[in-house]
Each structure stands twice: as structure tokens, then as C-alpha cells.
């Protein structure tokens, strides 16, 4: 849908800003509810994520001794800001991205990584031992999933000869969906997204039975709430990216809804199917399997593109096309 929003509206109200924050909470609710149902639990009520955030915002924020105070306060805000900024470049809710330029795919991915960097810094900032281990694991995990995730999203970009998210979104609907054309890329992108959001089974950086809450251990009240919202926003944007690239793009809000919710359903199922991976297992899996598979697929795409002009006329003459 091609509606041009005034930049300030897009930034603060719709489709970014306030509306995105609330949809983040809704997505978190759906995710929690689905996982709960898969695990034969009842799960939260629909307003639970909002209630959590309101409660946390109302609470006192404890700043532990031994931290750099300005950093401690600023990090959650930076993380949320980066996530909200990246929303401007993606076709949120099926609308055309507010801003776009060649190469905004790379910018968006880096903005999304700010979250993990902020978590890593937040953990390293405190003296708490659980936080330190959590930060180490978060950054280790960043190095393992980031490359395959990027490569997986590059697949459609290379196939469509454009590094502009809006154009990829428009082009993904023409012809074969990329989920069928590039199945490996889809799987890696989806699993990479789960690693990015530290969802189970990739929740080693905040494994509660080992290191309490990882990097967030010392966070309470406002800071924790902002981190939480930031992660919800990233969930929405991540699902938007993967769905628009691999599930044929969006033309309308309805399109957006069913495609992202379908992906959310799949991630929720994956979350409840596995035991938590150790951090060494995570790294091993990504570099031994993930990267190799995506690279293989990239090679196939590039070779295909090089030979397509040669092969296509031949095929057409053969089948009389």
C-alpha cells in the first residue's frame, strides 16, 4: 500500500513510534500465549505484557554501585532508539517504508544489532558476575548468528539486484516466493532471528537456571522495561523483514498480518521443541552448518544469475516458450 506519511507522524505515531510499541506488546503476548499452549499451559492474559511494562515503569530503578551511571541509564534508551529507527526502513504493516535508499538493508541490519551490543555493554558495565557472563555470551552469540543472518537476507537482495528493502518487498511478490526458491536462506534467516532475539533454544545469554537473567540481572524498573519494549519492537521488525523477503512481500496490512503471524507461530513451535543449546553448541552450529549452507546457496544464486542469460534462451527454444 503506497501511502506517504509525514515524517514526524511516521516517527512518533504510525506506522513507527507509539503504534509500533503497542504492536510489539501484542506480538509478545501472542508469542507467550502460543508457547504456553504448546507446553500445555494456559499462558498470560491479553494485557499481561502491557501490565508488565506499566509495573516496571512505575518501579524504582536501582542503580548498583560500581557502574558508570550515565551508561547504565543510556544503554536501554539507545537500544530502543535503534530499534525504532530501523522501523523507518522496513515495510511495516504493509505500508511503503518511510525512508529508503540503496543499501538501507545493511543500515537496518546494523541498527538491529545495536540491541545486542547494548545488552553486551550493559552486562559488562556492572560488576555482577552473572551479568558479565551473560554479556560475554550475548556478544559471542552475536558473532555467531550475525554473519549467517546477513547472508541469508542477502540472498533475495542479490537475486533481485537491489539492496533496497522497499524494492525487495515489491519484487518478492513477483514470480516464485523466495521461501521456495531459496529454502535454505529462509530457514537460516528465521533461526538467525531467533538467535538475535535470544529466544529459546538460543537463550544461553540469559539462561535463568545458570546465570539468573544474564546481562539484565542488575536492571530493574525503567531500564529493564525499556530493554523489554526494545526487544518486542525488534521481534516485530525482524518478523517483518523475514516475511517480506521470503513470503512474497506485503501489499496490504492484511497481507502483513497473516504472514508475520504465520512466522510467529513457527518460531513459537521451534521455541518449545528443543532443549537450550550451550553457547559452544550455538557457535558450533552456526559456523559449521549455518554459514556453510548459506554460502552454498549464495554460490548457487550467483552461478544461476551468470548462466541464466545463456541457459534461458536455450530452454525457451527447447520447450517452445
Amino acid at each position, binding site marked *: 500500500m503506497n501511502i506517504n506519511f509525514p515524517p514526524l507522524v511516521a516517527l512518533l505515531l504510525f506506522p513507527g513510534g507509539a503504534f509500533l510499541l503497542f504492536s510489539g506488546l501484542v506480538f509478545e503476548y501472542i508469542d507467550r500465549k502460543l508457547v504456553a499452549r*504448546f*507446553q*500445555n*499451559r494456559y499462558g498470560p492474559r491479553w494485557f499481561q505484557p502491557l501490565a508488565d511494562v506499566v509495573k516496571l515503569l512505575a518501579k524504582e530503578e536501582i542503580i548498583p554501585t560500581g557502574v558508570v551511571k550515565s551508561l547504565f541509564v543510556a544503554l536501554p534508551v539507545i537500544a530502543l532508539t535503534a530499534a525504532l529507527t530501523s522501523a523507518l526502513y522496513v515495510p511495516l504493516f504493509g505500508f511503503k517504508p518511510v525512508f529508503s535508499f540503496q543499501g538501507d538493508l545493511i543500515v537496518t541490519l546494523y541498527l538491529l544489532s545495536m540491541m545486542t551490543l547494548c545488552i553486551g555493554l550493559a552486562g559488562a558495565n556492572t560488576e555482577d*558476575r*552473572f551479568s558479565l*557472563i551473560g554479556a560475554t555470551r550475548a556478544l559471542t552469540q552475536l558473532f555467531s548468528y550475525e554473519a549467517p543472518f546477513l547472508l541469508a537476507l542477502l540472498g533475495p537482495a542479490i537475486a533481485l539486484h537491489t539492496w533496497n528493502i522497499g524494492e525487495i518487498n515489491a519484487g518478492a511478490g513477483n514470480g516464485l516466493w523466495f521461501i521456495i526458491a531459496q529454502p535454505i536462506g529462509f530457514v537460516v534467516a528465521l533461526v538467525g532471528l531467533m538467535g538475535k532475539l535470544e529466544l*529459546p*533454544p538460543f*537463550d*544461553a545469554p540469559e*539462561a*535463568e*537456571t*545458570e*546465570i*539468573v537473567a544474564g546481562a539484565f540481572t542488575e536492571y530493574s524498573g525503567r531500564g529493564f522495561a525499556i530493554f523489554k519494549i526494545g526487544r518486542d519492537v525488534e521481534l516485530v521488525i525482524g518478523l517483518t523483514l523475514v516475511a517480506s523477503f521470503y513470503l512474497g512481500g506485503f501489499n496490504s496490512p492484511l497481507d502483513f498480518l497473516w504472514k508475520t503471524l504465520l512466522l510467529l507461530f513457527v518460531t513459537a513451535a521451534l521455541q*518449545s*521443541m*528443543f*532443549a*537450550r*543449546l*550451550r*553457547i*559452544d*553448541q550455538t557457535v558450533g552450529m552456526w559456523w559449521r552448518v549455518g554459514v556453510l549452507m548459506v554460502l552454498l546457496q549464495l554460490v548457487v544464486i550467483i552461478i544461476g544469475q551468470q548462466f541464466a542469460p545463456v541457459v534461458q534462451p536455450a530452454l525457451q527454444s527447447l520447450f517452445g516458450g
Partner: protein
Amino acid sequence: MEPKTAPEKFIVPIGPQHPALKEPGHFEFTVEGEVVTNATARLGFVHRGMEKGAENRTWIQDLYLMERVCGICSHVHALAFALGVEKLAGVQAPPRAQAIRELVSELERIHSHLLWLGVAAHEGGFDTLFMFSWRDRETVMDLLETISGNRVNYSANVLGGVKIDISEKQADAIRKGMDFLEERTKHYLKVVTEDETFLGRTRNIGVMTFEQADFLGAIGPTGRASGVKRDVRVDSPYTAYNDFPVKLVTHTHGDLEARFIVRIQELYESYRLVRELVDKMPTGDLTVRVPRRIPEGEVISRVEAPRGELLYFLKSNGSDTPERVKVRTPSLCNWSSVLVTAVGHNLADMPMILAGIDPCFSCNDRIVTVNRKTDSTQMDWEDLRQYGIEYYK
């Protein structure tokens, strides 16, 4: 150049309050990166003075006190106590009472092992298995409630017999429940032996060889997973285990996977035993008379709790209160195996290794006298009381 100093140790404290521990205990893991190089344990956070309390109560009152030593395996504590007292008094409970005692023991084992399965899976981050096994555990909890009226402290024993009877209707409910649980347990055995991610967390993790297990005195399913053939139910059968014998389940690998398999196979054994017991329950009385004053003497009473051998030492001076009650719970014997197997593993494996022995903190916390070589002091009751008041001031 500055002189080389030893690198600062990075110690990760787990407990007394930690999400991995459901009860307070304190563990310090020295780590290098993610690898654990040393482990120490400190217990005693839930010392409740029960042994001393038992000396101030009558034999009959103690039965109810001892049932509350442990919240999971409550029946075996009362059973060990009752068996000891009966031995001192020179009486024996009637066959039907013995069979019902064994029945409740096995139902309790089923609930305990299913509970452990869930907890251990949760420690490994496999919450789905946790939720499912605890849901199915409700079946056996309901059965225990049906036959005894209580979910946790069943209070099935009295001195000289039992106070509950199994009716034909209850027996049918038990049979149905066992069929359901057996079906579910087959599924769980499949999950723990075939699920790739779960095997990644359990296979070859926390390996304890037979020699180590033997040397460290590992008992119960923890020891049996390393091939230690020790089970009080087999070695010196009590209650009705002579007429309804149990098959010893052992494994040779000694890793976490083996501990899962041993416990799950013990579940099968318990299902079989429970069915056999309700089918061939002896008829007759439920109790015999036990005198209020227990004759002078000492006795050791051993039973197999879900976690391993439970030992009671009872001393009577001929009055209606015991002179000394000493409890040695199975968890206490297995701690050293945790500290030894922990070294060399990842920090991420620690919760599972800890949970692997099925620890029960509150029942193993007792006063410990540390006998230092230089300053050895003797404390009597008054000193000890004063020390406690000063300590917590």
C-alpha cells in the same frame, strides 16, 4: 617487569538464592571462561533441629514429625521410623499393612521420579518436557490423594501398621492411572534417548565411572547409573519386598543420560510392582498393638527412598520418648559426586549436574561438627543455644 601474580579467580556463586535451586544451598564454581575448574558446596541453610525436636516428643508424635523431614519423599521417612520402632518393640505389622506400605512407597517413587524428570529438564532449558511431565505427575498425585486424603504428607503409617485401606474402587483407579502413566513414560524415554538437542546436554556430561561412584559412596539412582549394584529393596528387603520383589535397574555409562534412563526404567518397575500389589493384595488386619513405652535398645532401619538409601538410627531408653534419632538422608551421600564430576565441564552444565543427583536440601541439612586439629571445642546444649542467639543477633 612486575612479578607474575596468580590470575584472579572468577568465582560464580550459585545460591543460596538462585533460580536453579528450588531450595537453599550454596555452591561456588571457579570458572575459566566457561569451563569450571573447581567446585565447592556449603550446606546447612535449612537446618530445622528435627533430630533434637524428636527427643522431646513421644514415639507416636515423632512419626508425624519425621514424615515432615522431606517434602517429596515423606512416606519413606515415616516408614523407616515406624519399621525401626516396630523392631525395637518386637512386633511386626500384618501382611496387608506391609503390602500397603510398599504400594505407597512405590507410588511415591513414581511421583518423585516424574518430578525430578521435570526439574532436570527445566535446568537444561527444556521447559516443554518440564510442563508435560508435571502435568502427568498430577495423575499419581491424585491417586495418592484418593487413597490417603493428602497430596504430600500422606500419613499412611502408624506404629504397627497402616491407617489406610485400598478398596476395589481405588484399586481400579490405580490400575487405570498406571496404564496412562506407562504410556506417557514410554514417550519420555523416547524423548530423552532420541532428542538431539537434549542428548547434546546429557550424553557424556557429568560422567562418573564405577570406581569413582564406588569410592565416593554414591547411592540410589545416581550410583546405579554408574553401575553400582546397590538397592536396599533388593539387598535387604523390608515390608513386602520379599513377596513382591523389585528388579535392580543399573546402567554402565554413568553420564546424565544414564541417570535419566535409570530413573525412567525404575518408573516401569514401579508401575509393574504397583499393579502386582493391587492385584494380589493380601487380606487381613491393618494394625497390631505397639506398646506406648518402647523397650530399651538401639536399632538401625534402612529403606530405599527415591533418591537412595535412607538410614535411621533409633535409640530407646525404655520410656515413651526416644533418646536419640539420627537420620542420614541419601542426598548427603551424593554431594561429593557432584563436586568431583563438575570439574572440567561448562558452566552451562552445572545446573543439570546439580539436579542430576536429585538433591533434596532441606532433608539433608543437619548440624555438622567440624573437628579442627587446633581448636577443638565441646559445646553443650546451653552453649549451643547461646551461640545461636549470638550468631543471629
